[in-house]
């Protein structure tokens, strides 16, 4: 089980944001930054942080909407999506990348730093791979803004996971766009999976795909 810590942003405002943190079980393999969905640092994100810790990584999930709404949490319903999308649109890209850089700096003294993100965080894991230096590997899950940023060149080994049944993200088109600009980046499409398939919300979860994607991510992070 983890705990909430405070990290000071690399952004000009030096804002101190909370982050959910979990120490690694057993021998420390490295650090993992976990980037949230639009719903805040909810039970799913915390469970993911705890799981990366149980796999041997010191994991940390920054609360990216903290400046706008301290402690923001939203349900997977219409109102929750609206609130989360509103915060996403009100949170500047440069600020998110500066918060990610601060998490990297928090972890980097103790070994390599990898990044994984889901949904909103999947977009930012991809963008961070291209724009935030000092990361060892990146794994991007179903980010709706990856396609528009496909031409960014990742500075570290990066993999992308997409669900074939994702109504909002055209998996094949994203794969083509990423591979056209970055032929060395593996883009995996999971046939039985929709948006948010790693999330344990029963309406989203696709267990077999989630396990396979996590195994691929784990191997990437272990090798990095």
């Amino acid at each position, binding site marked *: 089980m983890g705990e909430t810590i405070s990290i000071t942003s690399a952004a000009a405002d030096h804002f101190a944001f909370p982050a959910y943190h979990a120490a690694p079980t057993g021998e420390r393999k490295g650090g993992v930054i976990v980037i949230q969905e639009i719903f805040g640092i909810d039970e799913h994100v915390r469970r993911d942080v705890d799981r990366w810790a149980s796999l041997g990584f010191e994991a940390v999930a920054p609360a990216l909407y903290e400046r706008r709404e301290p402690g923001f949490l939203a349900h997977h319903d219409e109102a929750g999506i609206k609130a989360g999308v509103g915060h996403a649109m009100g949170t500047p890209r440069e600020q998110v990348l500066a918060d990610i850089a601060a998490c990297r700096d928090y972890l980097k003294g103790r070994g390599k730093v990898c990044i994984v993100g889901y949904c909103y965080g999947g*977009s930012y894991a991809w963008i961070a791979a291209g724009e935030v230096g000092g990361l060892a590997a990146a794994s991007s899950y179903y980010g709706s*803004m990856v396609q528009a940023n496909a031409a960014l060149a990742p500075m570290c080994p990066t993999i992308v996971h997409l669900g074939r049944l994702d109504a909002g993200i055209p998996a094949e088109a994203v794969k083509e766009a990423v591979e056209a600009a970055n032929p060395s980046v593996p883009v995996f499409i999971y046939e039985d999976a929709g948006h948010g398939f790693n999330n344990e919300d029963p309406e989203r979860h696709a267990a077999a795909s989630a396990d396979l994607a996590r195994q691929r991510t784990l191997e990437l992070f272990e090798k990095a």
Partner: protein
Amino acid sequence: MGEAITLTSLKDTFSFGAYRAPHEDARRGGLVLIQEIFGVTEHIRELAEGFAADGYETIAPSLYDRQHRGFQAGYGGDDVAAARRYSEAAPWDEVAADLDACVAALKPPVFVVGYCWGGAATWLAACRCEGVAAASSFYGRRIPELLAETPRCPIVLHFGRRDPSIPPATVEAIADRFPEMPIYQYDAGHGFVSDRRADYNPDAAKLARLRTLQLFTLHGGGRGEN
């Protein structure tokens, strides 16, 4: 007085600037005010302050920021050529996503008003953006490009009869496709709301502004309720 804010597109995470004028007195609603081709100029900021004085929390986004951050043109020469180039080069998809971010930044009810290039972008917002209560579009020359799309909220259109860039056939084509839509025509040229332009027509500007405020009031902008 207003302030500079930053908003983020959920199409590509691009962060762009906007001018925000807080509502004075009781809040009638939120308003997205869309620039002419010239950028978020002093004139646009004054228009925003004007609606703020009427009770609307107003956001005027800098929609050319991907091409030229903070661009503001004068009204002559090279600046106009650059302004025209930026407006032609801004894809409607990107503009719509930027406008989504503006609408999401405002508490409902949210209205949209826009002028010149922004008149067409107002049409775009009415067709594509979630959560727009009503829209008022001023002399949007490029509406025909978007005529296959249908506004999802009440919208009124304003045109100058003597606007050389918008011939009567253009207005007729819109009226043919949407016979119920209020289309107001004024004895004026292009850009008649702007006191910075030769075609400024204060009477037409006043009447069109009144019609705009009436539309907003009719669709949720009652004083003191929001």
